[in-house]
Every structure is written in structure tokens, then in C-alpha cells.
């Protein structure tokens, strides 16, 4: 590993931790979501620094969309007009502290105790191609079952969100549902 790579990993690593910490220190749901994105981007940058460009960039690409969706959903489900009022990002303080300290200790123990394989990649190997062979080779069953499950969830979500809603077509206008259920239910 070159000195430049080490430098990059340290910088991006600190960036990932600090922006991850800021997620809980801010008072705005949108800022929290985008600090989290910044943290993921820093992790992606670490992967790029480690010559795994494809994985790093695809992580960044995915997180940009996901964090915006997360921000919108947070704003939607909070009793906070359009998310514009300031709010506390942390709740259940004791549980949160216990979970945080616990998982830090666990991960730190793993990092110190585990015997990581020293398996240097030969110079000139193409990590993207290797990844493809892995996904469609040994790990095919795992990834395909996860992929099919996700696809089923997506189709289900589209079906639930379709315009044929519980209370009639969505474009039929904003009509409040009746208080009394209809005969026979719907």
C-alpha cells in the first residue's frame, strides 16, 4: 500500500466517522439523512482508494438515491410540518448508549482478535470481473435468492402503491373515506 493510499484511507475514515457522528447531532431530518450519505460516500471513497473502484462507486450511486428516499419517508412519518421544525435525532438515550458501546466493543474485539487472511491480489487483477464471477459462481444461490426476494417486495410495493387504492382510484379526487365500513367490506 502506497503512502498516498494510507493517507486517503485515514482522511476518508475520519470523514466517515465524523459525518456519522453528526447524523445524531443535527436538528434536521434532512441534514441527518445527508450526513449519513456523506458517511457512506466516505466509505465508498475508501473502497476506491483500495483500488476497488467499481464497488466504491456503486455504493455511492446507490446511497444517493436511498438517502433522499429515507429523508422523504422520515419527513412523511414525523408529526413535524414538512420536517421544517427542529427536532432531536436521538431517543431512548440509555438503550442507544448501551447498544453503541456494546457494538463498538464487539467490533473492536473482532478487529483485534480475528486472524484476517493475508491474501494479496495479484497485480493487474480486475476486481470488477472477479466480483462478477463470484456473484454468478460460488455465491450465486445466496445472491439470486436475495435478488428474487427483493424483486417480489418491489412488485408488492408497486401493487400496494398503485392507483387502485383501498379507497378507490387515487385520481378520483380527494374524498375522505366513510366512517362506517361499507356493507360486506372492501
Amino acid at each position: 500500500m502506497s503512502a498516498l493510499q494510507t493517507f486517503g484511507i485515514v482522511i476518508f475514515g475520519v470523514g466517515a466517522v465524523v459525518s456519522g457522528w453528526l447524523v445524531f447531532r443535527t436538528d434536521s431530518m434532512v441534514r441527518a439523512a445527508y450526513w449519513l450519505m456523506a458517511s457512506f460516500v466516505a466509505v465508498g471513497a475508501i473502497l476506491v482508494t483500495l483500488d476497488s473502484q467499481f464497488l466504491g462507486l456503486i455504493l455511492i450511486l446507490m446511497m444517493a438515491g436511498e438517502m433522499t428516499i429515507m429523508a422523504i419517508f422520515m419527513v412523511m412519518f414525523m408529526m413535524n410540518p414538512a420536517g421544517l421544525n427542529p427536532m432531536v435525532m436521538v431517543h431512548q438515550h440509555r438503550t442507544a448508549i448501551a447498544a453503541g458501546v456494546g457494538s463498538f466493543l464487539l467490533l473492536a474485539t473482532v478487529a483485534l482478535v480475528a486472524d484476517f487472511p493475508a491474501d494479496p491480489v495479484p497485480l493487474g487483477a480486475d476486481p470488477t470481473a472477479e466480483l462478477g464471477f463470484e456473484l454468478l459462481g460460488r455465491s450465486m444461490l445466496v445472491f439470486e435468492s436475495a435478488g428474487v426476494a427483493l424483486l417480489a417486495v418491489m412488485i408488492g410495493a408497486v401493487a400496494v402503491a398503485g392507483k387502485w387504492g383501498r379507497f378507490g382510484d387515487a385520481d378520483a379526487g380527494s374524498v375522505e373515506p366513510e366512517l362506517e365500513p361499507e356493507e360486506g367490506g372492501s
Partner: protein
Amino acid sequence: MNPVQAVLFIGVVLGLGAYLVAVLDRVFAGAPGGLRSGLMWPIRRTAFLLVQRRSETERPDAEAWALAPALLAALAAVGLTAVPFTPSLAVADVSAGIVLFGAAMIIVMVAVFLQGWSPNSIFPLIAAYRFAAMALSFGIPFSLVVLTTAIPAESLSVGAVVASQEGLWNVVRQPLGLPVYLVTGAAVAFWGPFRIPEGTDLAGGTALEASGPTLAVWRIARAGVLVTLSVMGAAIFLGGHLGPVLPGWAWTSVKSVALLTLFVWSGHAFARMRVERFVWFGWVILLPIALVDVFASGIVAL
């Protein structure tokens, strides 16, 4: 290319491109006045915005508001770095250049959302949510057609994609690719019929509360995104710097300007689409076409 040269080079390309966007925009708008006033217009307009002062709103998210235009400009620059302008001149022809470009264009969503969210004002906020709905609808077809160009090249590097088009351009090899790219590309830059988050019905939408230098940077950055999309489109669909007689940089420029002209023209040729219609269009029309493009290219490659 050393870092200083690279920054200067990208800055000059984006600056010239944004200037060209403004001039072409005025030409297609059919604005009166001779050539001289047309060429001076972008300069005068920018000078005005630099003289005008920034406006303030009640309790904005000031940092995010300042960040959004800069982020948009940075994304346009990042997307441009992966393109080889001549066989030997690219700022960073990285091995996953196409993914780098795709990631930069998807993060445009974040910049637009922040721009609409930050001023604490209702119409920009609606505009931000509109763009999020749009981005989720064009994001997948856009990424698919861009990534499909890597199939014949068997590489994600833009340089390799250009090289693979020696003899047959991707616009012929993947006939569905370029049309979907142009439509979704205009949507990425919320330009033309997809000016949905900046529509007149929202009195300017995401840009409504911006004025002065902020507005100048926002407008230039948006034109820059259009430039990046044109240059990349020329590289991955029209063979980039490949071509007879003329040197490579000339072919890159000619093809990029052609796509840029098409983008700018669409802004005056079409009515602004309804956001609901766009979402339908993205999922029901564009996504299946993009999938057919992927499968067909895969079969041809096998």
C-alpha cells in the same frame, strides 16, 4: 495531466459549454437583436447577477442553501473527468468511469433537493419533492442505458467504450440507447419538457428564492450538467473522438455541441410535462425500453 492543469481544463470546458448553452438558448427563444447582443447576453446577465445581492428568507438552512449550487457544479465537473477528449487526453480515465459518471448524475438529485429544501419556502419545497419523484422515475432507465454501452466494450472505462466503437458506433449498435439517454438526460438537468421542478406554475420552483451570485452559480451549474451529459453522450454513443480527417478533440467537440444543441432546442420545442405524467412515462415507457436495450445488447454481445 497534473491536478492544476486538470482543474483548469475542466473549468474551461464547463465555462465555455455553459456560455454556449446560454447563447443557444437565446437563439432558440427567437430573441431579437443582432449577433453581438446575443454573444454579449450571457456576460451581461451574469454581471447583473453578480451585482445583485443575495436574498434572505426566514430561518433558512443557510449552509445547505450555500452548498447546493456548489454541489451541482462539482457534480458536473466530476462527471466530465472520466471522458477522454482525445485518445490520450482524459483527466482521469478510471477503470469504472461510467459508474463514476452515473453516480455523479444521480447525486444531482441531492443537490436539487437541498436547493429546494433549504430556503424554508413552500414552492421550492414542493419543487424539491417533485424532483425526488422525477429522479426515482428516470434514475433506473438512465443508469441502464449508460451501463449498457459497457457491454460491447467489456469494460467500464469510458476510454474502452469509445475504443470499442471503432467501426460501429453505439448509436447504431444499440439503437434504443441514445433516445432514452437524451430523454432521461434532459430530465437529469431538469431541462426542456422536464423543467418540472423549475416550472412557471411554481414561479421558478427550486430557484424561486435564490438571487444574485447564488442564482448565477445555480444557473451556470445546471448548464454545466447539460454540458457534461452532452460530452459523455458523444463519447459513449457517438464514438467520442473517433472520426476521419479531423483531429480527435475536434470530433469530440462537434459531436458534443450537436447533442448540446439538441438538449437546448428541446427547451423551446416542448411544453412542460405534468409531474404525474412524467412518473408514468418513466416507469411504463422508458424503463421497459431500457431493459430491452440491456437484453438485446447482451444477446448481441454473446
